[in-house]
């Protein structure tokens, strides 16, 4: 009797060595793959599930400060160096990958209001509530007792924020007035004033380096040109913008973190209304920072959470929170687009991954292609209900959840009231105002 068995030549399917590329003959005729879409869907579903499984964004924290963190600054050239200033006037220099504090010293009496590196990274500037602007050498002295600033400038006015020019030895401070300083001089080379309100944040445009924007306490954003003209334009918003950051890849776009729980992206050329409104926070947004690719930005809020937004979208793609993290005071996006650093009220600096489920370190080619493939699949099937549900589901702290519910009811109430008013009034008396047009009060010339 003849027994039929499957038999193949082992040369066809076995490799000689482990490293041999084994060529699998494949027939791509779609008729032979009737379940291709179903199989890909299952792969997408698995990929999205694994993404959530591996979503562990918290990398570590840097502790050592003895008071709340007030400001952070990244080194313009080195990824591993981080500067932090705190409310007790202490400055710390960190080695981020090793989570080590390299240097610490008291720089100011009172709160450190701002730190910024010089573009070469050779020294950094700090300013504090004691109305001084101090320059420090990046290289640490031999003993901590020898910590001395290279230069100290006594400012005549209160200074609350600092921003360095991208390439020139020029920096700008804000406070009562906006001042432009030359590094080697002890007097400001320009002072700009428009109105009487004090300014609490300032930032140089990294691309169009002569543009400057400040946030004023009268809810306004003021643009300056440092070349010769000074103040250019003022936008008054409904509530106060806390922080303003320019997009590092799009010269005319800037985003401000606002007191009204939202963030607004503006086009400098059309200031009448924001290009985009980014919602989702449930409390005032304190700080934000753009990713170096200019495609995303991170925001830290008073609601004890960090959110990541894509520039073109109105809702966040990610929320980070931990039980012990308190009110955020500052956030940073690292210059290699991989990490997010956050400083908060409870003296810790936290390191997060920018993409929660990303595998860190170098990847082997096969792994990389597999990850890229699953990324594409997730994108492809993003709207399928199961994929969508899993990908967009997040656990949030109870206070955020409750606040969201409250905000929702408030919004619904406003909407309902407006609709009622519209129904019961003359046609056209209650116009439809787009969301984007609601938040800017006026544009001052």
């Amino acid at each position, binding site marked *: 009797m003849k027994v039929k068995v499957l038999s193949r030549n082992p040369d066809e399917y076995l490799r000689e060595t482990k490293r041999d590329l084994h060529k699998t003959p494949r027939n*791509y005729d779609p008729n032979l793959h009737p379940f291709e879409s179903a199989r890909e869907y299952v792969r997408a579903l698995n990929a999205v599930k694994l993404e959530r499984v591996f979503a562990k964004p918290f990398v570590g924290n840097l502790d050592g400060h003895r008071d709340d963190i007030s400001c952070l600054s990244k080194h313009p050239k080195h990824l591993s160096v981080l500067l932090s200033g705190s409310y007790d006037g202490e400055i710390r220099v960190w080695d981020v990958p090793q989570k080590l504090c390299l240097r610490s010293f008291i720089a100011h009496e009172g709160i450190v209001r701002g730190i910024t590196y010089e573009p070469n990274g050779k020294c950094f500037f700090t300013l504090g509530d004691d109305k001084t602007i101090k320059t420090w050498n990046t290289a640490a002295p031999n003993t901590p007792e020898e910590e001395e600033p290279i230069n100290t400038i006594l400012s005549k006015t209160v200074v609350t924020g600092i921003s360095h020019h991208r390439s020139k030895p020029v920096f700008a401070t804000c406070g009562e007035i906006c001042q432009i300083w030359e590094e080697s001089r002890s007097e400001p080379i320009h002072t700009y004033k428009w109105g009487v309100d004090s300014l609490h944040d300032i930032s140089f445009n990294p691309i169009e380096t002569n543009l400057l924007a400040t946030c004023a306490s009268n809810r306004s954003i003021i643009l300056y040109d440092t070349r010769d003209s000074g103040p250019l334009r003022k936008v008054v918003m409904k509530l106060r913008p806390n922080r303003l950051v320019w997009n590092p890849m799009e010269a005319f776009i800037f985003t401000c973190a606002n007191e009204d729980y939202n963030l607004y992206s503006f086009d400098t050329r059309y200031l009448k209304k924001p290009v985009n409104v980014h919602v989702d926070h449930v409390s005032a947004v304190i700080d934000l920072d753009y990713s170096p690719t200019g495609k995303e930005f991170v925001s830290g809020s008073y609601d004890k959470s960090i959110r990541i937004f894509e520039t073109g979208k109105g809702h*966040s793609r990610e929320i980070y929170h931990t039980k012990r993290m308190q009110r955020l005071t500052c956030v940073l996006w690292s210059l*290699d687009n991989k990490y997010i650093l956050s400083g908060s009220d409870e003296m810790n600096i936290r390191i997060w991954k920018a993409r929660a489920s990303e595998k860190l370190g170098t990847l082997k080619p096969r792994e990389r292609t597999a990850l890229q493939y699953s990324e594409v699949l997730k994108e492809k099937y993003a709207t399928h209900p199961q994929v969508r549900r899993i990908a967009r589901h997040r656990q*949030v702290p109870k206070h955020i959840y409750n606040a969201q519910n409250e905000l929702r009811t408030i919004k619904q109430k406003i909407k309902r009231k407006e609709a009622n008013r519209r129904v019961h009034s003359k046609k056209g008396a209650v116009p439809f105002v787009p969301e984007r047009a609601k938040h800017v009060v006026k544009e001052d010339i």
Partner: protein
Amino acid sequence: MAEGKLIKNVLNLNKKITYPKPSRTEPRTEVSEFNLVKSEKGKSNVRVTDLTNALKKVSKQAKVRQRIQSFEKKVKPLPKPLEKVKADRIHRSTAFGKVTKHLDRWNAVVTSNRASNHLTFPLQDDLNLESGKNFTTFRIKSDLQKRLEACDGPSEEVTLEKESKYPLTMQEMLERRKEMMKMKIIESQKAAKARRQKKIKSKKYHRIQRREKTKNQIKEFEGLQQSNPEEALKKLDEIERVRVEERASLRHRNTGKWAKNKQIKAKYDSTNRQELAQQLAISRELTQKMNMDESHSESEEENRTSEVSVNNPNNPWVNQIKTSEEVETFLKGYRKFWEERNSGNEAKVSEVSTDISVPNEVVINENDITEENISNTVKYKDTLSPIHKKKTQDEETTSSDFKETRKKISTSKKRPRDSTSTLKAENDTIPLSKCENTVCLATSHWEVGILSDTDEDECDDIDVLFEKYSDNFKKNLDEVKQSVKVTKKRAPKQKKEQQKAKKPKRNSEDLSFKIQAKRPIIDEPLDENVEVNGKREETGLSLALQQDTYQPTRATKNIDPNDIIRTKPTDLQTELPDLLDLDDNEENDDQRGAIVEAFQDDDIVESFQKEKHDEIESEKPKDINLFLPGWGSWGGPGVIQSKKKRQNRRFIIKFPKEFERKDENKGNLIINEKSNEKVKKHLVSDVPFPFKTVKDFEASIRAPVGNTFVPETAFRRMIKPAVATKLGTVIHPMTEEILLKTKG
């Protein structure tokens, strides 16, 4: 010493205190306002005239003196600078304009980056190749160099890297200076304009300004009319209101030429005074009526149309309400005025040979004006033409009135008639060419006589004409009203279209193409909820969504199409023979017969109906009875449970009786809705955002990506990430080098 000072002070007590001239002591960035003292004018200043007077005696320098004096006449002192607030504003606005223009350079780069599917950071253009630093330039040595080297060893090439003293090159500096100058010029122009406009007191200037403004408004209105009729109506309303108010304040106020002439005579003649008073009374009446009219929407519309098209303040047709009496009284005055004027001019006309080109020009001008009017009121074109006719008609009536009262007037008969007819010729736009010809060829007297003859014919039945025109006018008005209503209805649709059209207009610099959607875009809040004891609490969002989904109750009941089909067909008596059907019917009949024979015993249709009914019944969710035996009553052996209690309504949760099924009105069809329940939750319910049709969306999903289904190269291409970064590399912000440098 001290005494002397004291005496000096005492002596100075009576005098005015004079401040010394300020002198700068220390350079400062801020100049204190207390140091700015107005210097005493004329006292210490050196005048040029004094200097030139000194030159008077020197004959050699006479020319110089003359030149200086002429300069002094020509050159005026610079104007006082604008107020600081205003000057600053101008400064800022020009600077902002410049900056926005400067920023537009980035449009191309930004758009391309936004649109590109794959971006690698750091951007390629960011490569930091600092020329000459890392590479030593190799040079072929000359003979001399070689020989020198042989003499005293290799000479070190000394490259002197001179740090330029100035950060900018000469050219750059010049360019910058040029730009500054340009900006200053623009600024000064604006400042000068503002200053000039502020100063002007002339009423006429402001009137012209206002007129220009209204003209612009009307132009805007025309534009709106085409694109957005609803807005246009609003605009029209506004324009009209302003115009009406102005008109109402001016009409019959005795400000015209006629009235002024009257006023001169009114001193001596009581009738003139009376007429003027009458005019004022009319004006009062008119303005009152205007206010009343505004309450009625319909009459308002009428007013609007009439006022838009007519610019002549003396036109009686402006207001429909005007009675014929009023018209007559008005015309009387008008006619008299013309008589007198003409009688006055008579002598002149006879003396001076009439310039032929003048009336010709007048005609053309008039025509221009009317054309302007037409263009201003495109929508009301229909109403316009009759009004113009009426305008001419108005003039005709003057002539007719004149005829009636001609006997009373002692002035010569020919001249006034002549004049009125010329007036007619001027105003009438219809026989334009004829008029032109006649005027050019011959004296006005002779030809005009003919025209006036035709006038007289028309004037005889003026009342008839009046009625005719008024009817015509009303009809036109109705048409306009209807058209307005129609446009109002159409407005929202058009508005949408207009917005669509508007969008690219606003971003005229927007370089982006219309991107064809490849992947769905999800821009919605995260599905956030709280974990409570391991159990997931339902999200507020989903709850809210549940509340929102409102199921409307079904209006129609289950209708079986079979029942309807069973109704008896009615035969239509037609002459057309249905030849085609005959054969089919025969065949069908055969088949049917066979089937009927085969299933003679069982009724298929009936049985299917029954089956469907059973299916529906079985799938119907049943009422749930929550009754538990023993609750609320005694239990145990021997206790009889009452059936009544079991059927108590309190325990039964009733399911809604009207339950929609998919196969409800479909006759011989049973759809099993439960079969794909498991698949259902994996299926997309509606077309996701950027896609507009199901077909598009399906197309985006259809093609597989994996390397099990597509060749490796295609796979690699398709899985390329949107943003790729290099591990451990700093990504710097964009630099200006990325922009293409253009010449000049």
